[in-house]
Protein backbone atom coordinates (compact mmCIF):
# COMPACT_ATOMS: atom_id res chain seq x y z
CA UNK A 1 0.00 0.00 0.00
CA UNK A 2 2.92 2.34 0.40
CA UNK A 3 5.41 1.73 -2.38
CA UNK A 4 6.18 4.38 -4.97
CA UNK A 5 3.61 3.20 -7.43
CA UNK A 6 0.86 3.46 -4.87
CA UNK A 7 1.87 7.04 -4.32
CA UNK A 8 1.19 7.62 -8.00
CA UNK A 9 -2.26 6.20 -7.41
CA UNK A 10 -2.90 8.55 -4.50
CA UNK A 11 -1.47 11.40 -6.54
CA UNK A 12 -3.95 10.69 -9.31
CA UNK A 13 -6.78 11.57 -6.93
CA UNK A 14 -5.24 15.03 -6.78
CA UNK A 15 -5.15 15.05 -10.55
CA UNK A 16 -8.90 14.59 -10.52
CA UNK A 17 -9.36 17.34 -7.94
CA UNK A 18 -7.02 19.62 -9.90
CA UNK A 19 -8.99 18.98 -13.06
CA UNK A 20 -12.19 19.90 -11.24
CA UNK A 21 -10.62 23.01 -9.75
CA UNK A 22 -9.38 24.28 -13.10
CA UNK A 23 -12.23 23.16 -15.31
CA UNK A 24 -15.11 24.50 -13.22
CA UNK A 25 -14.18 28.21 -13.39
CA UNK A 26 -12.89 28.02 -16.96
CA UNK A 27 -16.03 26.26 -18.14
CA UNK A 28 -18.13 28.82 -16.29
CA UNK A 29 -16.22 31.55 -18.11
CA UNK A 30 -16.78 29.87 -21.48
CA UNK A 31 -20.41 29.42 -20.57
CA UNK A 32 -20.77 33.09 -19.66
CA UNK A 33 -19.23 34.15 -22.96
CA UNK A 34 -21.45 31.70 -24.83
CA UNK A 35 -24.59 32.96 -23.10
CA UNK A 36 -23.60 36.57 -23.72
CA UNK A 37 -23.00 35.79 -27.38
CA UNK A 38 -26.35 34.04 -27.67
CA UNK A 39 -28.08 37.14 -26.21
CA UNK A 40 -26.17 39.53 -28.43
CA UNK A 41 -27.88 41.91 -30.84
CA UNK A 42 -25.30 41.22 -33.52
CA UNK A 43 -26.68 38.39 -35.60
CA UNK A 44 -23.51 36.38 -36.42
CA UNK A 45 -22.56 36.47 -32.74
CA UNK A 46 -26.00 35.15 -31.79
CA UNK A 47 -25.58 32.29 -34.23
CA UNK A 48 -22.17 31.55 -32.85
CA UNK A 49 -23.47 31.43 -29.28
CA UNK A 50 -26.56 29.40 -30.09
CA UNK A 51 -24.60 27.05 -32.30
CA UNK A 52 -22.09 26.48 -29.51
CA UNK A 53 -24.91 25.64 -27.11
CA UNK A 54 -26.76 23.44 -29.58
CA UNK A 55 -23.90 21.38 -30.92
CA UNK A 56 -22.93 19.57 -27.75
CA UNK A 57 -26.47 18.49 -27.00
CA UNK A 58 -27.72 15.67 -29.19
CA UNK A 59 -24.30 14.08 -29.52
CA UNK A 60 -22.68 11.87 -26.85
CA UNK A 61 -20.24 13.92 -24.82
CA UNK A 62 -17.63 11.18 -24.91
CA UNK A 63 -17.48 11.54 -28.69
CA UNK A 64 -16.63 15.19 -28.14
CA UNK A 65 -13.93 14.35 -25.70
CA UNK A 66 -12.28 12.01 -28.11
CA UNK A 67 -12.71 14.40 -31.01
CA UNK A 68 -11.37 17.51 -29.31
CA UNK A 69 -8.23 15.92 -27.95
CA UNK A 70 -6.98 14.98 -31.40
CA UNK A 71 -8.42 18.05 -33.09
CA UNK A 72 -6.89 20.48 -30.61
CA UNK A 73 -3.52 18.77 -30.76
CA UNK A 74 -3.51 18.98 -34.54
CA UNK A 75 -4.74 22.58 -34.50
CA UNK A 76 -1.87 23.63 -32.23
CA UNK A 77 0.71 21.75 -34.26
CA UNK A 78 -0.67 23.11 -37.49
CA UNK A 79 -0.51 26.70 -36.24
CA UNK A 80 3.04 26.28 -34.98
CA UNK A 81 3.98 24.62 -38.23
CA UNK A 82 2.74 27.59 -40.25
CA UNK A 83 4.63 30.02 -38.07
CA UNK A 84 7.85 28.14 -37.40
CA UNK A 85 8.47 26.41 -40.71
CA UNK A 86 7.14 28.65 -43.51
CA UNK A 87 9.57 27.12 -46.02
CA UNK A 88 8.04 23.64 -45.67
CA UNK A 89 6.17 22.81 -48.86
CA UNK A 90 5.01 19.21 -48.42
CA UNK A 91 1.33 18.79 -47.61
CA UNK A 92 0.63 18.16 -43.93
CA UNK A 93 -1.89 15.41 -44.50
CA UNK A 94 -0.14 12.68 -46.46
CA UNK A 95 -2.59 9.85 -46.82
CA UNK A 96 -3.01 8.49 -43.36
CA UNK A 97 -0.37 10.64 -41.71
CA UNK A 98 -0.33 14.03 -40.14
CA UNK A 99 3.16 15.40 -40.66
CA UNK A 100 4.52 18.67 -39.32
CA UNK A 101 8.15 19.76 -39.15
CA UNK A 102 10.25 18.78 -36.15
CA UNK A 103 10.26 22.24 -34.61
CA UNK A 104 6.46 22.38 -34.59
CA UNK A 105 5.97 19.10 -32.75
CA UNK A 106 4.10 19.48 -29.48
CA UNK A 107 5.61 18.73 -27.11
CA UNK A 108 9.07 18.77 -28.70
CA UNK A 109 10.53 15.35 -29.29
CA UNK A 110 13.39 16.20 -26.95
CA UNK A 111 11.19 17.34 -24.07
CA UNK A 112 11.31 15.37 -20.82
CA UNK A 113 8.57 13.01 -19.77
CA UNK A 114 6.75 15.39 -17.44
CA UNK A 115 6.25 17.93 -20.23
CA UNK A 116 4.43 15.28 -22.25
CA UNK A 117 2.22 14.46 -19.31
CA UNK A 118 1.48 18.09 -18.54
CA UNK A 119 0.68 18.76 -22.16
CA UNK A 120 -1.73 15.82 -22.20
CA UNK A 121 -3.36 17.06 -19.03
CA UNK A 122 -3.57 20.57 -20.47
CA UNK A 123 -5.36 19.26 -23.58
CA UNK A 124 -7.77 17.35 -21.37
CA UNK A 125 -8.55 20.45 -19.34
CA UNK A 126 -9.29 22.49 -22.46
CA UNK A 127 -11.48 19.72 -23.84
CA UNK A 128 -13.46 19.44 -20.61
CA UNK A 129 -13.81 23.22 -20.48
CA UNK A 130 -15.13 23.48 -24.02
CA UNK A 131 -17.71 20.74 -23.57
CA UNK A 132 -18.85 21.83 -20.13
CA UNK A 133 -18.70 25.46 -21.19
CA UNK A 134 -21.43 24.69 -23.70
CA UNK A 135 -23.54 23.04 -21.01
CA UNK A 136 -22.96 26.01 -18.71
CA UNK A 137 -23.83 28.44 -21.51
CA UNK A 138 -27.14 26.66 -21.89
CA UNK A 139 -27.88 26.94 -18.15
CA UNK A 140 -26.79 30.58 -17.88
CA UNK A 141 -28.75 31.53 -20.97
CA UNK A 142 -31.84 30.06 -19.33
CA UNK A 143 -31.00 31.84 -16.07
CA UNK A 144 -30.71 35.19 -17.84
CA UNK A 145 -34.06 34.72 -19.47
CA UNK A 146 -35.68 33.77 -16.16
CA UNK A 147 -34.92 37.12 -14.54
CA UNK A 148 -38.28 38.97 -14.42
CA UNK A 149 -38.55 41.31 -17.36
CA UNK A 150 -39.96 44.09 -15.16
CA UNK A 151 -36.56 44.36 -13.49
CA UNK A 152 -34.91 45.15 -16.80
CA UNK A 153 -37.66 47.58 -17.78
CA UNK A 154 -37.25 49.39 -14.48
CA UNK A 155 -33.54 49.67 -15.13
CA UNK A 156 -34.24 51.13 -18.55
CA UNK A 157 -36.71 53.55 -17.01
CA UNK A 158 -33.98 54.79 -14.69
CA UNK A 159 -31.93 55.58 -17.75
CA UNK A 160 -29.39 52.77 -17.53
CA UNK A 161 -27.65 51.79 -20.75
CA UNK A 162 -27.76 48.23 -22.05
CA UNK A 163 -24.35 47.53 -20.64
CA UNK A 164 -25.22 48.90 -17.20
CA UNK A 165 -28.48 46.96 -17.09
CA UNK A 166 -26.65 43.78 -17.98
CA UNK A 167 -23.93 44.09 -15.36
CA UNK A 168 -25.84 45.73 -12.52
CA UNK A 169 -29.31 44.22 -12.79
CA UNK A 170 -29.25 41.06 -14.86
CA UNK A 171 -26.02 39.39 -13.78
CA UNK A 172 -26.49 39.71 -10.00
CA UNK A 173 -30.00 38.31 -10.21
CA UNK A 174 -29.52 35.49 -12.67
CA UNK A 175 -27.42 33.29 -10.40
CA UNK A 176 -30.27 32.15 -8.23
CA UNK A 177 -32.17 30.99 -11.33
CA UNK A 178 -29.11 29.37 -12.81
CA UNK A 179 -27.93 27.67 -9.65
CA UNK A 180 -30.07 24.51 -9.81
CA UNK A 181 -28.80 23.94 -13.33
CA UNK A 182 -25.24 24.76 -12.38
CA UNK A 183 -25.25 22.45 -9.39
CA UNK A 184 -26.55 19.69 -11.60
CA UNK A 185 -23.69 20.52 -13.95
CA UNK A 186 -21.17 20.29 -11.14
CA UNK A 187 -22.43 16.81 -10.27
CA UNK A 188 -22.15 15.84 -13.91
CA UNK A 189 -18.63 17.25 -14.06
CA UNK A 190 -17.60 15.18 -11.07
CA UNK A 191 -19.04 12.11 -12.70
CA UNK A 192 -17.32 12.89 -16.00
CA UNK A 193 -13.83 12.97 -14.50
CA UNK A 194 -13.13 9.23 -14.97
CA UNK A 195 -13.31 9.93 -18.70
CA UNK A 196 -9.83 11.39 -18.29
CA UNK A 197 -8.71 7.82 -18.68
CA UNK A 198 -9.96 7.81 -22.26
CA UNK A 199 -7.94 10.91 -23.01
CA UNK A 200 -4.76 9.07 -22.19
CA UNK A 201 -4.14 10.56 -18.75
CA UNK A 202 -2.80 8.25 -16.06
CA UNK A 203 -5.69 8.94 -13.73
CA UNK A 204 -7.35 6.92 -10.99
CA UNK A 205 -9.00 4.53 -13.41
CA UNK A 206 -5.67 3.79 -15.05
CA UNK A 207 -3.92 3.10 -11.73
CA UNK A 208 -6.82 1.08 -10.35
CA UNK A 209 -6.54 -1.18 -13.36
CA UNK A 210 -2.77 -1.41 -13.13
CA UNK A 211 -2.46 -1.98 -9.42
CA UNK A 212 -5.36 -4.33 -9.04
CA UNK A 213 -4.26 -6.65 -11.82
CA UNK A 214 -2.45 -9.81 -10.88
CA UNK A 215 0.62 -11.33 -12.51
CA UNK A 216 1.71 -7.87 -13.41
CA UNK A 217 5.42 -8.12 -14.18
CA UNK A 218 6.08 -4.67 -12.81
CA UNK A 219 4.96 -5.29 -9.26
CA UNK A 220 5.98 -8.82 -8.46
CA UNK A 221 6.88 -7.91 -4.91
CA UNK A 222 3.19 -7.52 -4.14
CA UNK A 223 1.71 -10.79 -5.32
CA UNK A 224 -2.02 -10.88 -4.92
CA UNK A 225 -5.06 -12.05 -6.81
CA UNK A 226 -7.24 -9.96 -9.00
CA UNK A 227 -8.09 -7.01 -6.81
CA UNK A 228 -9.30 -4.73 -9.53
CA UNK A 229 -12.84 -5.24 -8.31
CA UNK A 230 -11.92 -3.84 -4.89
CA UNK A 231 -9.99 -0.94 -6.35
CA UNK A 232 -13.00 0.03 -8.39
CA UNK A 233 -15.23 -0.40 -5.39
CA UNK A 234 -13.00 2.10 -3.62
CA UNK A 235 -13.37 4.51 -6.54
CA UNK A 236 -17.14 4.05 -6.43
CA UNK A 237 -17.16 4.97 -2.76
CA UNK A 238 -14.87 7.94 -3.46
CA UNK A 239 -17.30 9.30 -6.04
CA UNK A 240 -20.33 8.69 -3.84
CA UNK A 241 -18.60 10.66 -1.10
CA UNK A 242 -17.84 13.52 -3.49
CA UNK A 243 -21.47 13.58 -4.59
CA UNK A 244 -22.76 13.66 -1.02
CA UNK A 245 -20.40 16.44 0.05
CA UNK A 246 -21.32 18.49 -3.02
CA UNK A 247 -25.02 18.02 -2.36
CA UNK A 248 -24.68 19.42 1.14
CA UNK A 249 -22.44 22.29 0.02
CA UNK A 250 -24.73 23.31 -2.83
CA UNK A 251 -27.74 23.23 -0.55
CA UNK A 252 -26.05 25.79 1.71
CA UNK A 253 -25.07 27.94 -1.25
CA UNK A 254 -28.64 27.93 -2.53
CA UNK A 255 -29.85 29.13 0.87
CA UNK A 256 -27.43 32.01 0.80
CA UNK A 257 -28.25 33.05 -2.73
CA UNK A 258 -32.01 32.89 -2.16
CA UNK A 259 -31.63 35.53 0.52
CA UNK A 260 -33.67 38.57 -0.43
CA UNK A 261 -34.75 37.19 -3.82
CA UNK A 262 -38.25 37.43 -5.21
CA UNK A 263 -38.62 33.66 -5.40
CA UNK A 264 -40.48 31.15 -3.27
CA UNK A 265 -37.18 30.10 -1.70
CA UNK A 266 -36.41 33.70 -0.76
CA UNK A 267 -39.91 34.14 0.61
CA UNK A 268 -39.47 31.07 2.79
CA UNK A 269 -36.24 32.48 4.23
CA UNK A 270 -37.93 35.81 4.94
CA UNK A 271 -40.70 34.08 6.86
CA UNK A 272 -38.20 32.03 8.85
CA UNK A 273 -36.33 35.09 10.03
CA UNK A 274 -39.33 37.27 10.76
CA UNK A 275 -41.44 34.61 12.47
Amino acid sequence: MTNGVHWLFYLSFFKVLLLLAITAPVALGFGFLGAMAARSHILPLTWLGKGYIAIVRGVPDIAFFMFFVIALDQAFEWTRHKILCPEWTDPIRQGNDFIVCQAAKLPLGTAPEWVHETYGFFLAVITFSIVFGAFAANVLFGGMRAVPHAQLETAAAYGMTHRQTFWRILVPQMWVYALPGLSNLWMVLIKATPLLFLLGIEDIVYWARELGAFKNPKFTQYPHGDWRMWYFLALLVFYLGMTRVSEIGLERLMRRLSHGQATSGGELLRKETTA
Partner: protein
Amino acid sequence: MSCIQTIQDYGLRSIGIGERAIPKADFTLCEQFTLIGSGMIWNIYFGIMALVTGFFLATALALGKASTNVWLRKPSEWFIFLFRGSPLFIQFFFAYFFFLSLKQSFPLLDALTSAWLGALIVLFFNTAAYSGEIFYGALRSIPKGDIEAADAYGMTGWSRFRRIIWPTMLRLAWPAYTNEAIFLFHATTLVFFSAFPVWQQRGDALYYAGYFADKTFNPFIPYPILAFYFILLTLVVIWAFGLVNKRLNRHLPAAKRSKMKLRLNLAR
Protein backbone atom coordinates in the same frame (compact mmCIF):
# COMPACT_ATOMS: atom_id res chain seq x y z
CA MET B 1 -15.94 -1.84 -54.98
CA SER B 2 -19.20 0.01 -55.20
CA CYS B 3 -20.97 1.42 -52.20
CA ILE B 4 -23.82 -1.10 -52.38
CA GLN B 5 -21.23 -3.86 -52.22
CA THR B 6 -19.68 -2.22 -49.15
CA ILE B 7 -23.02 -2.01 -47.42
CA GLN B 8 -23.68 -5.67 -48.15
CA ASP B 9 -20.28 -6.63 -46.80
CA TYR B 10 -20.17 -4.44 -43.73
CA GLY B 11 -23.72 -3.37 -42.99
CA LEU B 12 -24.15 -6.03 -40.31
CA ARG B 13 -20.47 -6.33 -39.47
CA SER B 14 -20.98 -5.38 -35.84
CA ILE B 15 -23.13 -8.43 -35.15
CA GLY B 16 -20.88 -10.79 -37.05
CA ILE B 17 -22.65 -11.10 -40.40
CA GLY B 18 -20.68 -10.32 -43.54
CA GLU B 19 -16.97 -9.80 -44.08
CA ARG B 20 -14.73 -10.78 -41.21
CA ALA B 21 -11.79 -8.51 -41.95
CA ILE B 22 -12.39 -4.80 -41.71
CA PRO B 23 -10.52 -2.44 -44.00
CA LYS B 24 -7.03 -1.55 -42.81
CA ALA B 25 -6.14 1.44 -44.97
CA ASP B 26 -7.42 3.82 -47.64
CA PHE B 27 -10.87 4.12 -46.16
CA THR B 28 -13.57 5.44 -48.43
CA LEU B 29 -16.29 7.67 -47.10
CA CYS B 30 -18.76 4.90 -47.82
CA GLU B 31 -16.86 2.40 -45.70
CA GLN B 32 -16.76 4.77 -42.77
CA PHE B 33 -20.47 5.51 -43.06
CA THR B 34 -21.35 1.84 -43.31
CA LEU B 35 -19.20 0.57 -40.46
CA ILE B 36 -20.13 3.34 -38.03
CA GLY B 37 -23.77 2.81 -38.96
CA SER B 38 -23.33 -0.90 -38.39
CA GLY B 39 -21.98 -0.12 -34.93
CA MET B 40 -25.16 1.82 -34.20
CA ILE B 41 -26.96 -1.54 -34.01
CA TRP B 42 -25.26 -2.08 -30.66
CA ASN B 43 -26.16 1.36 -29.37
CA ILE B 44 -29.78 0.85 -30.34
CA TYR B 45 -29.84 -2.64 -28.86
CA PHE B 46 -28.43 -1.48 -25.51
CA GLY B 47 -30.66 1.56 -25.44
CA ILE B 48 -33.94 -0.17 -26.21
CA MET B 49 -33.36 -3.21 -24.03
CA ALA B 50 -32.27 -1.13 -21.03
CA LEU B 51 -35.20 1.26 -21.46
CA VAL B 52 -37.83 -1.47 -21.70
CA THR B 53 -36.55 -3.47 -18.75
CA GLY B 54 -35.55 -0.42 -16.75
CA PHE B 55 -39.01 1.07 -17.02
CA PHE B 56 -40.53 -1.58 -14.74
CA LEU B 57 -37.80 -1.44 -12.14
CA ALA B 58 -38.04 2.36 -12.21
CA THR B 59 -41.75 2.23 -11.44
CA ALA B 60 -41.06 -0.15 -8.56
CA LEU B 61 -38.26 2.08 -7.26
CA ALA B 62 -40.41 5.19 -7.42
CA LEU B 63 -43.19 3.47 -5.50
CA GLY B 64 -40.65 2.13 -3.03
CA LYS B 65 -39.14 5.54 -2.44
CA ALA B 66 -42.57 7.07 -1.93
CA SER B 67 -43.64 4.26 0.39
CA THR B 68 -44.23 4.82 4.10
CA ASN B 69 -42.67 1.46 4.91
CA VAL B 70 -39.04 1.87 5.94
CA TRP B 71 -38.05 -1.53 4.58
CA LEU B 72 -39.22 -0.54 1.14
CA ARG B 73 -38.14 3.09 1.25
CA LYS B 74 -34.55 2.80 2.44
CA PRO B 75 -33.39 0.19 -0.09
CA SER B 76 -34.95 2.19 -2.94
CA GLU B 77 -33.33 5.39 -1.73
CA TRP B 78 -29.96 3.72 -1.46
CA PHE B 79 -30.24 2.06 -4.83
CA ILE B 80 -31.07 5.37 -6.49
CA PHE B 81 -28.28 7.20 -4.67
CA LEU B 82 -25.76 4.50 -5.52
CA PHE B 83 -26.41 4.57 -9.24
CA ARG B 84 -27.04 8.30 -9.60
CA GLY B 85 -24.19 9.35 -7.36
CA SER B 86 -21.37 7.51 -9.06
CA PRO B 87 -20.08 7.69 -12.62
CA LEU B 88 -21.47 5.17 -15.06
CA PHE B 89 -17.95 4.65 -16.31
CA ILE B 90 -16.79 3.40 -12.91
CA GLN B 91 -19.92 1.29 -12.60
CA PHE B 92 -19.02 -0.47 -15.84
CA PHE B 93 -15.51 -1.17 -14.61
CA PHE B 94 -16.63 -2.40 -11.24
CA ALA B 95 -19.36 -4.58 -12.71
CA TYR B 96 -16.99 -6.11 -15.23
CA PHE B 97 -14.39 -7.11 -12.66
CA PHE B 98 -17.12 -8.25 -10.30
CA PHE B 99 -18.57 -10.49 -13.00
CA LEU B 100 -15.07 -11.69 -13.82
CA SER B 101 -14.50 -12.93 -10.30
CA LEU B 102 -18.02 -14.33 -10.18
CA LYS B 103 -17.21 -16.32 -13.28
CA GLN B 104 -14.25 -17.95 -11.60
CA SER B 105 -16.45 -19.39 -8.89
CA PHE B 106 -19.43 -20.16 -11.09
CA PRO B 107 -18.40 -21.01 -14.65
CA LEU B 108 -22.07 -21.06 -15.63
CA LEU B 109 -22.18 -17.27 -15.43
CA ASP B 110 -19.78 -16.95 -18.34
CA ALA B 111 -22.10 -14.72 -20.37
CA LEU B 112 -22.00 -11.99 -17.76
CA THR B 113 -18.53 -10.87 -18.77
CA SER B 114 -19.52 -10.26 -22.38
CA ALA B 115 -20.92 -6.90 -23.26
CA TRP B 116 -24.31 -7.98 -24.57
CA LEU B 117 -25.40 -9.15 -21.13
CA GLY B 118 -23.03 -7.67 -18.57
CA ALA B 119 -23.12 -4.11 -19.85
CA LEU B 120 -26.86 -4.40 -20.39
CA ILE B 121 -27.35 -5.24 -16.71
CA VAL B 122 -25.39 -2.17 -15.66
CA LEU B 123 -27.33 0.05 -18.06
CA PHE B 124 -30.56 -1.49 -16.83
CA PHE B 125 -29.81 -0.67 -13.19
CA ASN B 126 -28.49 2.75 -14.12
CA THR B 127 -31.46 3.86 -16.17
CA ALA B 128 -33.82 2.37 -13.60
CA ALA B 129 -32.25 4.56 -10.92
CA TYR B 130 -32.37 7.73 -13.02
CA SER B 131 -35.92 7.18 -14.23
CA GLY B 132 -36.95 6.00 -10.77
CA GLU B 133 -36.00 9.41 -9.44
CA ILE B 134 -37.95 11.10 -12.25
CA PHE B 135 -41.00 8.95 -11.57
CA TYR B 136 -40.71 9.61 -7.85
CA GLY B 137 -40.77 13.35 -8.50
CA ALA B 138 -43.84 12.93 -10.69
CA LEU B 139 -45.51 10.72 -8.11
CA ARG B 140 -45.17 13.43 -5.53
CA SER B 141 -46.68 16.06 -7.80
CA ILE B 142 -49.84 14.16 -8.70
CA PRO B 143 -52.66 16.59 -7.96
CA LYS B 144 -54.28 15.83 -4.63
CA GLY B 145 -57.73 16.14 -6.17
CA ASP B 146 -57.11 13.22 -8.54
CA ILE B 147 -56.46 10.84 -5.68
CA GLU B 148 -59.35 12.18 -3.61
CA ALA B 149 -61.63 11.71 -6.59
CA ALA B 150 -60.45 8.11 -6.93
CA ASP B 151 -61.19 7.56 -3.23
CA ALA B 152 -64.61 9.08 -3.63
CA TYR B 153 -65.37 6.59 -6.39
CA GLY B 154 -64.40 3.81 -4.02
CA MET B 155 -61.28 2.83 -5.92
CA THR B 156 -58.59 1.25 -3.82
CA GLY B 157 -55.35 -0.63 -4.16
CA TRP B 158 -54.51 -1.97 -7.55
CA SER B 159 -57.33 -0.42 -9.54
CA ARG B 160 -56.62 3.03 -8.08
CA PHE B 161 -52.97 2.63 -8.98
CA ARG B 162 -53.56 1.21 -12.43
CA ARG B 163 -56.23 3.71 -13.48
CA ILE B 164 -55.35 6.92 -11.69
CA ILE B 165 -51.91 7.11 -10.13
CA TRP B 166 -49.83 5.34 -12.74
CA PRO B 167 -51.16 7.15 -15.85
CA THR B 168 -50.90 10.53 -14.13
CA MET B 169 -47.39 9.78 -12.94
CA LEU B 170 -46.33 8.82 -16.45
CA ARG B 171 -47.97 11.89 -17.93
CA LEU B 172 -46.16 14.21 -15.57
CA ALA B 173 -42.85 12.42 -15.90
CA TRP B 174 -42.89 11.92 -19.65
CA PRO B 175 -40.95 15.00 -20.86
CA ALA B 176 -38.17 14.34 -18.34
CA TYR B 177 -38.27 10.66 -19.15
CA THR B 178 -37.75 11.47 -22.83
CA ASN B 179 -34.57 13.30 -21.91
CA GLU B 180 -33.47 10.33 -19.88
CA ALA B 181 -34.04 8.06 -22.87
CA ILE B 182 -32.00 10.27 -25.20
CA PHE B 183 -29.39 10.38 -22.61
CA LEU B 184 -29.30 6.65 -22.14
CA PHE B 185 -28.63 6.21 -25.85
CA HIS B 186 -25.67 8.54 -25.51
CA ALA B 187 -24.43 6.61 -22.51
CA THR B 188 -24.37 3.37 -24.49
CA THR B 189 -21.24 4.63 -26.23
CA LEU B 190 -19.32 4.09 -23.01
CA VAL B 191 -19.78 0.32 -23.04
CA PHE B 192 -16.85 -0.67 -25.21
CA PHE B 193 -14.62 2.06 -23.83
CA SER B 194 -14.81 0.72 -20.32
CA ALA B 195 -13.69 -2.74 -19.41
CA PHE B 196 -16.01 -4.78 -21.58
CA PRO B 197 -13.94 -6.32 -24.35
CA VAL B 198 -14.74 -5.96 -28.01
CA TRP B 199 -14.94 -9.42 -29.48
CA GLN B 200 -13.63 -9.84 -33.05
CA GLN B 201 -13.82 -6.09 -33.57
CA ARG B 202 -17.58 -6.08 -33.32
CA GLY B 203 -17.97 -2.81 -31.51
CA ASP B 204 -20.46 -0.01 -31.33
CA ALA B 205 -20.52 3.17 -33.40
CA LEU B 206 -18.01 5.04 -31.29
CA TYR B 207 -15.66 2.05 -31.39
CA TYR B 208 -15.57 2.15 -35.17
CA ALA B 209 -15.31 5.94 -35.24
CA GLY B 210 -12.39 5.74 -32.84
CA TYR B 211 -10.83 3.03 -35.01
CA PHE B 212 -10.95 5.24 -38.09
CA ALA B 213 -9.67 8.27 -36.22
CA ASP B 214 -6.78 6.22 -34.88
CA LYS B 215 -5.81 4.83 -38.27
CA THR B 216 -6.09 8.04 -40.25
CA PHE B 217 -5.11 10.62 -37.61
CA ASN B 218 -8.04 12.56 -38.97
CA PRO B 219 -10.85 13.08 -36.48
CA PHE B 220 -12.72 15.42 -38.80
CA ILE B 221 -14.46 12.69 -40.80
CA PRO B 222 -15.48 9.79 -38.49
CA TYR B 223 -16.70 11.87 -35.55
CA PRO B 224 -19.03 14.08 -37.58
CA ILE B 225 -20.43 10.90 -39.14
CA LEU B 226 -21.04 9.58 -35.63
CA ALA B 227 -22.64 12.87 -34.66
CA PHE B 228 -24.90 12.66 -37.68
CA TYR B 229 -26.11 9.19 -36.69
CA PHE B 230 -26.71 10.22 -33.10
CA ILE B 231 -28.63 13.34 -34.01
CA LEU B 232 -30.75 11.16 -36.25
CA LEU B 233 -31.31 8.70 -33.41
CA THR B 234 -32.17 11.54 -31.03
CA LEU B 235 -34.79 12.83 -33.45
CA VAL B 236 -36.34 9.36 -33.77
CA VAL B 237 -36.48 9.00 -29.98
CA ILE B 238 -38.12 12.42 -29.64
CA TRP B 239 -40.65 11.50 -32.29
CA ALA B 240 -41.51 8.11 -30.74
CA PHE B 241 -41.79 9.49 -27.23
CA GLY B 242 -43.86 12.37 -28.60
CA LEU B 243 -46.44 9.86 -29.85
CA VAL B 244 -46.71 8.32 -26.39
CA ASN B 245 -46.92 11.78 -24.86
CA LYS B 246 -49.83 12.59 -27.13
CA ARG B 247 -51.64 9.48 -26.02
CA LEU B 248 -51.00 10.14 -22.34
CA ASN B 249 -52.39 13.66 -22.70
CA ARG B 250 -55.32 12.87 -24.97
CA HIS B 251 -58.01 13.35 -22.30
CA LEU B 252 -56.91 16.86 -21.43
CA PRO B 253 -58.06 20.13 -23.01
CA ALA B 254 -55.44 21.53 -25.36
CA ALA B 255 -54.27 24.27 -23.01
CA LYS B 256 -53.46 21.91 -20.15
CA ARG B 257 -51.48 19.38 -22.14
CA SER B 258 -47.88 19.07 -21.14
CA LYS B 259 -45.73 20.02 -24.06
CA MET B 260 -42.59 18.13 -24.81
CA LYS B 261 -40.11 20.73 -23.77
CA LEU B 262 -36.69 19.46 -24.56
CA ARG B 263 -34.32 20.41 -21.88
CA LEU B 264 -31.56 17.95 -22.39
CA ASN B 265 -29.73 17.30 -19.23
CA LEU B 266 -26.20 16.52 -19.81
CA ALA B 267 -24.03 13.54 -19.08
CA ARG B 268 -24.03 10.96 -16.36
